């Protein structure tokens, strides 16, 4: 299940709960990834919208893929505004040995960027501007453009 939080993620709390969840399950590797909002192009914050029904199906498919390799994925994401230098995205992979977790993390985060139904806005002078140039059409887009 994807954990969704209003505003910035409390990374210490999330990682602590994930670690507690996984440490007695005989996983030898626990790999984490965090996305932090950078100070660039005059933004004050990033803001996110999530379409949860499609996100949870996308995530379930990844969990199945992880399971088939003996691994387990955790993910947390913010909705709403996340100020500079706070975190909006966290992911973790548990696996019996490191190689599976390292590879799965790479694949998972790349597919997340490409296909997870989340929309990003730059917040500048309190205006919310869709980050169109940094956004990617989901696989299969353009179906209705006939």
């Amino acid at each position: 299940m994807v954990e969704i939080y209003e505003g910035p993620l409390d990374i210490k709390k999330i990682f602590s709960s994930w670690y507690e969840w996984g440490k007695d399950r005989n996983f030898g590797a626990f790999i984490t990834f965090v996305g932090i909002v950078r100070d660039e192009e005059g933004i004050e914050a990033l803001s996110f919208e999530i379409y949860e029904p499609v996100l949870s199906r996308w995530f379930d498919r990844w969990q199945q893929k992880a399971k088939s390799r003996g691994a387990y994925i955790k993910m947390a994401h913010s909705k709403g505004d996340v100020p500079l230098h706070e975190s909006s995205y966290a992911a973790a992979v548990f696996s019996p040995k490191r190689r599976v977790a390292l590879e799965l993390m790479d694949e998972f985060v790349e597919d997340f960027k490409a296909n997870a139904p989340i929309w990003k806005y730059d917040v500048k002078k309190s205006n919310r501007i869709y980050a169109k140039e940094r956004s990617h059409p989901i696989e299969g887009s353009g179906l209705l453009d006939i």
Partner: protein
Amino acid sequence: MVKVEFLGPIKKEQMSVDVKDLKELAQLLKSDPDIKEWLKECAVAVNDNLVNSLDVELKDGDKVSLLPPVCGG
């Protein structure tokens, strides 16, 4: 009636339309100047499942969602 919703940055209220399949919906949306430009960049979900074919029949109560380009993280 089929419910059509526009997600993320698309500035358009949800609508109810009388169409029998995705092809018919595509024709209808093409004639809407607010939506036309988004069509080439949008993925489509029917009842929250992404679809890759226009050969999808729609029945009363179905929900179609248009998902514009994404950028999580």
